[in-house]
């Protein structure tokens, strides 16, 4: 049995006479984008909460957009991602006074995807590190409190909350992760494992999956060539695009120099009985002359020709 439930996280740039663009500016380019994913046999599609109104604008409603996805062989819209990178007076998970506003945001997001195939609501649980610093047990506990509330509201709507930890977020070390999961209800707050982000933060994603297997909701499969051993994570204004000396952190699976051991992770997943979606993500793949279409095709090639054989290892 080779793994069939592969979803794709909605990052894409298409070329137009007006330069490289995100395809959602018109239907022609959106459907060319979906055709390319369908040609690669992705059957799940995750997007951003802020993209839902854009797709609704293009097709009339989120439901109508989901039907377009289904016309292209997708099970439907399978995941939604939300984040508050910078702290503002309106949204700062480590400040209790903003929790009501954030919970209201998630009520709107949950309503927007009602009736769709969305299983996971994936969140970056904190603002950027330097907006939370100093990171203390207290900031982690207040953050946990928020996500317990959001997890509860989502659970009532049959949605699972998954926390996805950027290397430049304010919960990143094994200790911080442990404290966070200790203070969150395993049934309401899941773990969403991004292979590159944890590797960059110096934490082994495979070990994390083993530890938090029961509450693991899904994965972002992407690779990296660098570990952040020079505190890029806490340097303003932004570590993901502006780190000194590292213009690009993320690469697709299977590139030379990749640090993540995907075959080993795949075996572990198959042994664990995990049955959710495995999501491929290519974030900022256009850097340095890169290309979303090519990276995505090459990653799916790696899945079908390398990870597929990794399965054999699992049958040992």
């Amino acid at each position, binding site marked *: 049995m080779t793994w069939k439930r592969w979803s794709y996280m909605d990052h894409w*740039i*298409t*070329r*137009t*006479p*007006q*330069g*490289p*663009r*995100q395809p959602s500016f018109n239907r*022609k*380019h959106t459907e*060319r984008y979906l055709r390319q994913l369908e040609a690669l046999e992705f059957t799940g599609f995750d997007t951003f909460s802020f993209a839902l109104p854009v797709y609704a604008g293009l097709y009339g409603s989120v439901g109508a957009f989901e039907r377009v996805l289904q016309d292209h062989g997708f099970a439907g819209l399978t995941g939604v991602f939300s984040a*508050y*990178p*910078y702290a*503002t*007076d*309106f*949204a700062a998970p480590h400040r209790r006074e903003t929790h009501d*506003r954030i919970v209201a945001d998630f009520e709107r997001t949950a309503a927007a995807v009602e009736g769709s195939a969305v299983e996971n609501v994936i969140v970056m649980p904190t603002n*950027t590190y330097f907006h939370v610093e100093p990171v203390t047990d207290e900031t982690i506990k207040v953050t946990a409190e928020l996500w317990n509330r959001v997890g509860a509201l989502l659970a009532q709507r049959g949605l699972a909350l998954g926390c996805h930890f950027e290397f430049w977020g304010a919960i990143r070390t094994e200790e911080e992760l442990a404290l966070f999961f200790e203070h969150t209800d395993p049934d309401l707050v899941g773990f969403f494992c991004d292979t590159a982000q944890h590797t960059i933060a110096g934490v082994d994603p495979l070990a994390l999956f083993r530890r938090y297997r029961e509450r693991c909701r899904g994965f972002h499969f992407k690779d990296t060539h660098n570990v952040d051993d020079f505190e890029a994570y806490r340097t*303003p*204004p*932004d570590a993901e*695009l*502006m780190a000194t000396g590292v*213009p690009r952190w993320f690469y697709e699976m299977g590139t030379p120099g990749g640090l993540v051991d995907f075959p080993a992770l795949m075996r572990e997943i198959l042994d664990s009985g995990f049955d959710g979606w495995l999501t491929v993500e290519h974030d*900022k793949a*256009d850097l340095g002359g890169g290309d979303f279409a090519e990276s995505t095709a090459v990653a799916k090639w790696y899945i079908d020709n390398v990870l597929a054989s990794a399965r054999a290892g699992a049958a040992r």
Partner: protein
Amino acid sequence: MTAGWSYALNQWRQSPTSFVRLEEHERAFKTVSAAGFRAVELWAGTGRWSNLGRPEHLRLNYGSAAGFLDRLAECGIDAVSSLTWDPSAPAAEEGFELRSTSRPADHGAILRAAETYLELLSELGCERIVVRATEPAGRLGSGFDAAAVASVLDRLGAAAQDHGVRVAVDIDCLSPSARPTASRGCSSSPTAPSSTCRSAPRISSWRASTRSRSSATTRPASGTSISRTPTSRTRKRATCFRVRKSTSCRGTRAVRSNAGSSSSGATPVSSTLPLC
């Protein structure tokens, strides 16, 4: 008032993750300077990657407004000519409020939001804030209220003057407020397949300028001047280039030069043919 030609930087922002690193800004400033422009126009934005468009992010990236001016000077740019701002565009830093210049109830929020930009502009020694008069017609529907729009623009003009800044009202091809009137050079007959400009790109003075010679100018009390020049017929496929005479050389918001560099461009291309 320094007058002259500046270049709009918004064309470099082709996707949300592009044009963020400071070395990319530097290369754009130098390209603009090398091409003969001595000033740049900024544009309002939101989020940490709008680090040339959002005051607090600009200050964080360059230390301060003065630090940004030093950086520009090092790249051969003397001034920030203007900043474009759409009051109806939601911003994370403002809780993603949806505001409309046509709704008096939103005017307080609009003025508070403007204050953030006006403070930056005065620190930058920039004398012009280009304010989009309304949200796009598609979003506004029948809710356009000229009196309400004029009222908030007047209050913005007064607030701007306190910072040594003047408001220039920006009308673009999606605005509901552009009324089709006969205009020289552009075929205005409704049956014409598209609005075609037979003459060279028309220079119109939507934007207030110190001495708007060529157009009749009505000057409301506060420092805003809206010039009444015959407008080119704004049709869906506007093919007129409007070169803002006084402050910046910029194609219309919808038309930009091509990817990657400021000057490499595709051969004449019908806009319907995607590049793939």
